[in-house]
């Protein structure tokens, strides 16, 4: 690690102000991604602004029939929350499968989607459920606009995620094929039947989470595993690496979509 200053604001306003006045500063949430980055000397921020002590960024509440979850809410809290289990059980199940207990006790929703790792789980839920990302600049960014590319989002450099609002789906399910080493998704598929139609989001398979429109169309016509049978995913734009080839990932997308459907009921 290189030396840096450390700030511990207790309000969002204070954090936003610190970020605006320290252009080389970085936000610290659960630190599960950023601390290893620092330890390997891959980043040299002037300061860390720790969001852990800002009460308004934490918590789970019901809103407009759906859920609003604060950016600093830990994965373990979402996984164990009776409210989440009742309103969107697929979200609790997804959180339960992230990494290992240590990671779930530290990692946060805001950190996960701000980082937008191509293999992270939460982006699939946010996109699959058509959620809205709320920020310190008063913006409400639709999921379809939020994830812009590999490790890239629609956030501005001095913008802080405050919460994510998830509308309640009719049905939703998530299935992931984990990387045996890291437990991140080699392929993860989130399926949701919503008022606005079927949404299917795929993570792990490509440089950025994306909607599998062919599967969406198939499920729109019939909400059944058989409907997915005819769908072939084109491997052309998928990742190929030491863990899985693009062809295998393309195949896994349909397999995981079926399993997500089964989980959704």
């Amino acid at each position, binding site marked *: *690690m290189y*030396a840096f200053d450390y700030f511990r604001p207790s309000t969002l306003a204070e954090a936003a102000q610190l970020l605006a006045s320290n252009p080389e500063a970085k936000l610290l949430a659960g630190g599960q991604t950023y601390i290893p980055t620092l330890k*390997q*000397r891959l980043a040299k921020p002037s300061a860390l602004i720790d969001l852990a002590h800002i009460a308004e960024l934490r918590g789970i509440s019901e809103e407009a029939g759906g859920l609003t979850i604060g950016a600093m809410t830990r994965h373990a809290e979402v996984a164990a929350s009776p409210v989440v289990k009742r309103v969107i059980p697929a979200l609790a199940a997804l959180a339960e499968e992230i990494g290992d207990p240590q990671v779930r006790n530290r990692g946060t929703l805001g950190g996960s989607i701000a980082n937008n790792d191509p293999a992270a789980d939460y982006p699939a839920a946010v996109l699959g459920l058509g959620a809205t990302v709320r920020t310190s600049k008063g913006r409400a960014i639709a999921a379809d606009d939020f994830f812009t590319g590999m490790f890239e989002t629609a956030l501005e450099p001095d913008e802080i995620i405050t919460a994510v609002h998830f509308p309640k789906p009719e049905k939703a399910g998530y299935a992931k*094929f984990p*990387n*045996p*080493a*890291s437990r*991140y998704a080699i392929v993860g598929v989130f399926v949701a039947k919503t008022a606005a139609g079927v949404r299917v989001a795929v993570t792990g398979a490509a440089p950025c989470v994306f909607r599998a429109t062919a599967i969406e169309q198939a499920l729109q016509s019939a909400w059944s595993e058989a409907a997915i049978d005819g769908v072939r995913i084109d491997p052309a734009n998928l990742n190929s690496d*030491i*863990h*899985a*080839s693009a062809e*295998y990932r393309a*195949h*896994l997308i349909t*397999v995981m979509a079926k399993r997500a459907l089964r989980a959704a009921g």
Partner: protein
Amino acid sequence: MAEKGIGARVLRKEDLRFISGRGHYTDDINLPGQAYAVFVRSPHAHARIKRIDKGPALASPGVLAVLDGQDVAADRLGNLVCGWLVKSKDGSPMKMGKHPLLAQEKVRYVGDRVAVVIAETYHQAKDAAEKLIVEYEELPAVVDLAKAHDAPALVHDEIPNNLCYDWELGDKAAVDAAFAKAHHITRAQFVNNRLVPNAIEPRAAIGHWDPGQDAYTLYMTSQNPHVHRLVISAFIGIAPEHKLRVVAPDVGGGFGSKIFIYGEECVVLWASKKIGGRPVKWTAERSESFITDAHGRDHVTTAELALDKEGNFLALRVNTKANLGAYMSTFSSCIPTYLYATLLAGQYKTPAIYCDVQAYYTNTVPVDAYRGAGRPEASFLLETLVDQAAIELGMDPADIRRKNFIPKDAFPYQTPVALVYDTGDYARVFEEALKIADYYGFPARRAESEKRGKLRGIGLSCYIEACGIAPSAVVGSLGAGVGLWESAKVRFTHTGKVQVLTGTHTHGQGHETTFAQLVADKLGVPFEDVEVIHGDTDKTPVGMGTYGSRSLAVGGEAIVKACEKIIAKGKKIAAHLLEASEGDIEFKDGKFTVKGTDKSKTIGEVVFAAYVPHNYPPGLEPGMEETAFFDPPNFTFPAGTYVCEVEVDPQTGKVDIVRFIAVDDFGNVVNPMIVEGQVHGGLVQGIGQALLEGARYDESGQLLTGSYMDYAMPRASDVPFFEVVTTQGTPAVANSLGVKGCGEAGAIGAPAAVINAIRNAIGVRVEMPATPERVWRAIQQSPMLKAAE
């Protein structure tokens, strides 16, 4: 049997400190005034060092010294060496490339040590290391073992074809003749995957030169502190042996990787003197461990088995290319030769065997012993080949094995590949394993799995290994540079307590418990009164260390011998005290008794008399402390049968191990609980090799699996509850305890059981690691599954 003596399931003495965070590891040691070392490593797999500019690094805050290969050369330090001379077919010695402590002229793998920066703090050393200017001229890298022979680049300019040696064992003419008249020949090619050892504690060292005494101390993570002392003195030349103390305190796992003499530990010792005698500390970061701890395995092999009509094995022919990495590590030459080809008979009476091995340099991390070392490679290829032969001949894999086992009345058994097996009853162990596994009830379980959409398979593996290395004269005749005996000192105190000083080292094996049980049993003292001391060359007698499942079979026997000396001396004292003749004294359960009477003295009374010799046999030395060395007459040969049952998800290719049965012949067992734990650990590592682990390099020689994000280690949830039986032993004859060694068995026997089970499920053998994608692809191509559709 004493309550906590031989055969008892005594809880491990060492666990209280380990599980309560009170272990004391090298990195826990902090000496007054210590400085910190950070190594600058090559980012290239192969390059010429054009220029090193130390200026900016030296000017960085807190820096005490920057040392590179030129400084090593200027101080005339010796090179790192391989201690086992292997000769090629033509009699020429292996070609050992120069391996300096810090690179000179060339770097040969990503991670090769280029320089060391010593600074007041760790972070200052890190900062300065980034400022060292090294100019490289990149060279093409040799990465692929299969192509090393004809690669345009040479890892060591003076070694043609990157070939270190071309070695052979066995009777080629007899093998060729047997093949010529064979009814059937089974052929296969195997890749034995490269593994990263991944001990949970990274390597660490603190070197200290004391200017007052002109003496050196090296605290380090070592499996064999005396071997480190010997090599650092005799070959590297940093300190004379009597002025060097090597201390290996608690060590968090080794699996072979902490046997070897690496550059880093030598450098911190040398550097301490360079900076005037301040201690210098280095602890590897995990990413350094991945690219500097010697890797394991990495073979490409072609094997052929000749059979007659009935499925009897006639001959075995094996050709292996072995990857040595960029330099020869300490024992790297003997792993793919004497610890490999000598095991190719397995448990079978195959009359003729021939193996030749070409060992190549590549621009990768050096490869050396890793849990099992040579024996897993032999066992894996033999047991998967035998399975394939059975399939090709339409036989049950169980039947082909039964037909070929060495019968129990054939021992001692001379194999065609040098070894003489002492004892065994392979068929009995085999039948026991099949019974526990309900082998013949498998079809019903397969049908049940099929109903759930899963493909079920069962696989067998009958491994053998040679442990308890080793008879010094034998290993000497094969090229070993050292003797492989072991030592022990048993010391009583005035108050009847016992200190056992052993030349072996415990880093997970539980010696503190097992050896205490042994002594409690032999001397009839309470288990709690025995303390085992190890890992300090100034305290213990010279020992060769712990590896190759040798500590109990060789080191334990040395303890027994020391106990026998204690008893012999005790008899003299007891005879004097009891006014009887020495020949009439019997020793049992801690008591010296005059034969046929109830006159006796406890061992405590006798020991007290030895230390307070007021009434004492004239001419006898006082004191009660005995040292013994033991050089075994032969190896020991643990063997066993493993049965693995898997369920394969045909949609994803994911393999779940649903059952795993291990029946082992370890001879006699001192602590069955510890032995079962050793088997569990070995099995997990073997399953890791079979399903998950595999070091991968890209074409330029960058390690792609350089962290736990990409290198998959097995977790608890990847394995089932093991069914382990360790009480089927035929006692070994090379030691009086009848013990064989159990530390590596699991890692040796498991891979073939897993791979055979997968083949049984899907009809195709999948290379290791059998990742879901590989299995899924194999399923797409499986003739067996196509036929079933």
